[in-house]
């Protein structure tokens, strides 16, 4: 999670300066050995998934190259694609809601003093610390108590809730770097509140807003635990689908799906990174 966030953060330019300080390093130090071993550990599962997605037989023994699981994935996995659509729908709507509410909140907390400020700062911090299961369980009990039927709507509420703190903090971080005299300049030049917001603050905090939105989309697509608790019949998301497939044992269609998802995220992340760089540069 934090990895995605670190990656999506708008890049800063002093990397070159830091590199200049790096001293000479002996080949194959202890730390290097550990690092290489760790990389093998991190990538091994992915390679196994990729390898066996091309296996002709269902089992884990290699019987020859085949694309049969990809064919199954794309042409005869209706439920899977329904789950995929649900996931995308929830990711986009919850990320959008979180971005709007979170950005407004960040602007309010950055520029004004008011009673609720301390409360907001404390309560947005908590959901990021508490284990996911607590949020899932408390929301499930809440929905049951209030009488809201579990389904896509409850998943949307839950996802917006855990997305909000991230958007809020990322936009706040951007607003903190803001040259505040620009606001004064806008006022001196006769801009009113709405104009300052729409023409100065929003465009300038765009990198923070965009990376907040993208983080929210990724977190939402990724979430299993919270979704598991607040989902109802007919509201299967992709992680929930994978979960039920795993319970029936290893299925090569899931391998093929994993490979498509790994490729998809790599391509997406790189294009987003370039997009963010472009925005930051503008």
């Amino acid at each position, binding site marked *: 999670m*934090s*990895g995605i966030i670190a*990656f999506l953060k708008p890049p800063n330019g002093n990397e070159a300066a830091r*590199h200049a300080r790096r*001293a000479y390093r002996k080949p194959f*130090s202890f*730390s*290097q050995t550990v*690092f290489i071993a760790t*990389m093998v*550990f991190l990538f091994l*599962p992915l390679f196994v998934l990729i390898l*066996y997605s091309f296996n002709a037989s269902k089992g*884990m*023994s290699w019987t020859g190259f085949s694309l049969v699981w990809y064919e199954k994935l794309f042409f005869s996995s209706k439920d899977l694609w329904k789950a995929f659509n649900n996931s995308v729908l929830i990711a986009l709507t919850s990320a959008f809601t979180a971005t*709007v*509410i979170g950005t*407004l*909140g960040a602007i*309010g*907390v950055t*520029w*004004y003093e008011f009673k*609720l*400020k301390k409360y907001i700062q404390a*309560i947005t911090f908590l959901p990021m610390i*508490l*284990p*996911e*299961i*607590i*949020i899932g*369980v*408390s*929301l499930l*009990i*809440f929905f049951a*108590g209030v009488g809201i039927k579990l389904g896509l709507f409850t998943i949307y509420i839950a996802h917006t*809730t855990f997305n*909000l703190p991230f958007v*809020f903090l990322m936009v706040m971080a951007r607003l903190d770097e803001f040259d505040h005299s620009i*606001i004064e300049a806008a006022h001196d030049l006769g801009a*009113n*509140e709405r104009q*300052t917001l729409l023409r100065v*603050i929003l465009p300038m905090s765009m990198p923070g807003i965009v990376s907040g939105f993208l983080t929210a989309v*990724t977190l939402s697509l*990724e*979430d299993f635990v919270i979704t598991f608790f607040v989902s109802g019949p007919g509201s299967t998301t*992709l*992680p929930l689908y*994978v979960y039920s497939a*795993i319970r029936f044992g*290893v299925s090569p269609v*899931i391998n093929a799906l*994993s490979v498509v*998802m*790994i490729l998809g*995220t790599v391509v997406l*992340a790189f294009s987003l990174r370039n997009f963010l760089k472009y925005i930051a540069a503008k």
Partner: protein
Amino acid sequence: MKPALSKKNYGPLYAGPIALWFTLFFAAPLIIIVLYSFMKKGLHGGVEWEFSLAAYEALANATFVTITIRTLVTSIIATVLTILIALPCGYFMAKSKNQTLLLLLVIIPFWTNFLIRVYAWIAILGNNGFLNDFLKATGLVKNYIQFLYNQESVILVLVYMYLPYAILPLFSTIDKFDFSLLEAARDLGATKLQSMTKVLLPNIRSGLFTAVLFTFIPIFGAYAVPLLIGGKDSYMLGNVIADQLTKTRNWPLAAAISMVITVVTTVGVFVMMALQKREARRAEEAARFGNTTTLEEINNAAEIPDSHNPAGGRP
């Protein structure tokens, strides 16, 4: 100071939605959990509105005590292992010239969906999995070894899942560390290990705290990993909550266990924050009394005799 956007205070207007959202969908549910944990259980889930300590009494039950201790031990072992692996990794990354590339290497596996990564480990460790297949092919094993469904496999996969949560904060603090201090320590006769434990570690404490917090908390509340990788004997508190909610339908008990996790987490956060604050204060005091000497200060001091040189600076 930041200038106000306008003379009128629009703060509550901007921040109203976020305050409302969190009150309704975060604070209220948490309060309901606290309330539910003090009530009598309903027949088919839910609660009866009657005060009762039954849920907390049930927590003293031997089974729950065992599971709580197991959860704690599992979390501690997994966290310690994660940190022990992450420290050299972060150190190596901080010293590397290709930081961006190495960061990418650490992050890419974690773009893969959480459940798919769990699934990958099932595919590797399963009885008909990759590892057993490999062992059988090499003739080391005749039948198969059961790698899954035990405590060790749960810890292995937990370490795998949360490793970057430790590597990234450690990397970013070690990256700010002044490596010439290590050379200075070595010049003054410290062994390599001493220079690490007495110079590096004390200087990256804040990163260590963050790394410990980021790994311990999610592991303590783990649900999916013990469910899919572990067996009945490696159940953790998260699994008990889910069982109480969906199978046994004892909601007050589920709420009470959630309270335990929440309290442990909150205490952990406060302890870490207090430690971090003390750390900051100590650093501040040390700076005020001039107790810490960074290499830069030593260099600056050494430059004083040279100050008649108008160009100044180091040779």
